[in-house]
């Protein structure tokens, strides 16, 4: 039962990284200095999906609270600075994207676009730091609380944050090759291809720093799974690059999506059966089973999730289907 809920939590958070990833990626690309029309066009390429993307995060935290209450408290307060940064980023992007076109003045819109860029950077860095922080363990003491926040200040966490930022940028550019009018595709495809080596370098840096870190080596229970993570990321990025060169936007987007989704299951599997690994007292580590809510709560939520999760996926799929294809002059513009 706990495993099923852990998997569902992973599914929602990974989907959030994939879908929110292109929101933030597109947000980052507003910094390119394009014309006002081009900036608005890129945001409206995300358009109808934007509100439906970020709620995957809301649902993931809801599952975290309902099914893993102990983990919820310790994870969020134990990695406070990373969560704080990500949360500020999420709020800025949410407000920025939806409000940027409400003023008519060009200067105000440019200002809001900067807010979106800053928010996208913060959100990507924050979630990257969270995943990095999980992989290197936290100073969890015997009383079940994480002591202090200085443990996050390591080169590995910084590299993990930058790696996610690079992956998100690639994801955003690749998404645009799928959605923008055909005439605009070559330039964003070039940009996406150019970003792939940056992402590869960031992933390589995080891998090296992770291998050198005593804490990461100690925290990871299954090194084979952990080593698989950078290898799979590199493979996905190379596939994306090749697909972009051949103009296969769909394949490229699938590959970059895999690259953003994979860290979640692989970090989970590498730490399994623990979820918060203590760096100070091995016996204090929090396992998935310990972190889960008690039986009656999980049973109640389980009966509810059984019909509900297919319905949620169905309505999201409806959104993707209704607004499939490239944007064109006839597509609604609101953001």
């Amino acid at each position, binding site marked *: 039962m706990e495993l099923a809920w852990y998997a569902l939590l992973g599914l929602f958070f990974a989907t959030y990284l994939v879908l929110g990833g292109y929101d933030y990626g597109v947000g980052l690309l507003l910094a390119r200095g394009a014309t006002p029309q081009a900036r608005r066009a890129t945001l409206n390429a995300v358009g109808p999906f934007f509100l439906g993307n970020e709620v995957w995060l809301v649902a993931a935290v809801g599952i975290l609270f309902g099914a893993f209450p102990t983990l919820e408290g310790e994870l969020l307060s134990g990695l*406070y600075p990373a969560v704080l940064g990500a949360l500020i980023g999420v709020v800025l992007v949410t407000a920025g994207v939806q409000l940027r076109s409400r003023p008519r003045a060009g200067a105000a819109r440019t200002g809001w676009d900067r807010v979106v860029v800053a928010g996208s950077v913060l959100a990507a860095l924050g979630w990257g730091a969270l995943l990095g922080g999980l992989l290197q363990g936290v100073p969890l003491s015997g009383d079940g609380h994480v002591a202090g926040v200085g443990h996050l200040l390591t080169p590995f966490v910084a590299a993990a944050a930058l790696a996610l930022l690079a992956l998100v940028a690639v994801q955003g550019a690749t998404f645009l090759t799928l959605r923008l009018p055909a005439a605009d595709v070559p330039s964003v495809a070039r940009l996406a291809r150019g970003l792939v080596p940056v992402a590869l370098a960031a992933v390589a840096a995080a891998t090296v720093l992770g291998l050198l870190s005593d804490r990461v080596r100690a925290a990871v229970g299954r090194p084979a799974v952990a080593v698989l993570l950078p290898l799979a990321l590199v493979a996905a990025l190379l596939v994306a690059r090749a697909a972009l060169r051949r103009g296969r936007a769909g394949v490229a987007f699938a590959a970059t999506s895999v690259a953003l989704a994979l860290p979640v299951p692989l970090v989970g599997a590498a730490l399994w059966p623990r979820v918060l690994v203590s760096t100070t007292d091995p016996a204090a580590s929090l396992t998935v089973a310990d972190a889960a*809510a008690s039986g*009656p709560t999980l049973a109640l939520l389980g009966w509810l999730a059984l019909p509900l999760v297919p319905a949620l996926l169905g309505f999201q799929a409806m959104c993707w289907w209704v607004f499939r294809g490239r944007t064109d002059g006839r597509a609604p513009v609101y953001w």
Partner: protein
Amino acid sequence: MDPLLIARLQFATTTSIHFLFVVVTLGLVTLLVGLQTAGFVTGKPVYERLTRFWGQLYVINYVLGIATGIVMEFQFGLNWSGLSRYVGNVFGAPLAIETLVAFFLESTFLGMWIFGWHRLRRGVHLALLWGVALTAYASAFWIMVANAWLQHPVGYEVRDGVAHLTDFGALLTNPTLGFAFGHVVSAGLVTGGVLMAAVSAWHLLRRTPDFLLFRKSLRLGLVTAALAVTTLQGFGFAQFGPVGELQPTKFGGGADRDALVAEWTAKFGPGDYTPPVLSSVGLGFMILIGFTLGCVWLLLPLLWRDWIIRWKFPLWLVLLGVPLPFVAVILGWIAREVGRQPWVAYGLLPTGQAVSPVSAGLMLTSLIVFTLLLGTLAVTNWVLLARHAARGAHDPALGRPPTPDTDHHPDPVFA
């Protein structure tokens, strides 16, 4: 500074800002459902124009509702990890249900509704708005289930210091739930109605071109506010009975209170178990505002032959009434929430035990950052709302028929 005080201040700030936007969302979405359904049934263009105008204001308002809502959700884990540790098994369930049943679907539907104009069939587009409204109400319901449990914990047993769920049905029949939910929903409708009437009154006073359109929304807003203010007062006063009985410390003295305080002192040790005076003072003001808003009934006869518009001064009264529901909802929440201090879960988990063991400096940083961020966004949002309300229903961006490039007007070329 004391981390507990900072955490409480942050919760109060975030919740208050959140609620100021949520009441408008709840009220306006109900009115929008009425407007778009009327347009669908009658086929009159005025209803589509009304839906676009009020829909745009609704969507702008929704931005801050969602932004503050996300912060609220994370705040439980960031600042109140004891809450999830000791009572998460019970309290977490309605919150999880709320995110999955309501928040998730509400946003998914709203995204499709905003971008679905002129693209989806009219029936599907209308169904999406119904979906947004129903999930908004579901959201309010499940949040109230969670809040009612904190007011009066039921359906659980404590084993090894941790609460476990025993009877989920008891959470749904919680005596602090039903009337409070009706009260909150009525407050949303009153706020939405007053806002709609006031914006319309402004346009009618300024004699902007859309007389018939704003006459219609003035009437709709006033009638909605009048009907809802009556249920608002009813549900409000109905709560005194159960709440006074279940929370003897909330409204002051009595033998019940002394007995309960003695019981708590024996169980949890000596301490101050009475809530701050602030909460009951606010309650008095809220009731006064409630009676003032009830006077909206006196305006209804003036709708006959448009006397309300011809006389003008009733329109000014409506305009001046805008801040009232907002002040009242904040005072109401202060009475409910501050009134249960010093407990997070009444009589079960003291506030001090629920706060995260995070340093005061870090928590203060979080308080300052989020207060400035959400405060700035809230003010900006209200400015944008006011500007769009003033701009009128001429051509809102929401539902504008698509053209190749909406903002780009090429200069005429003379060959």
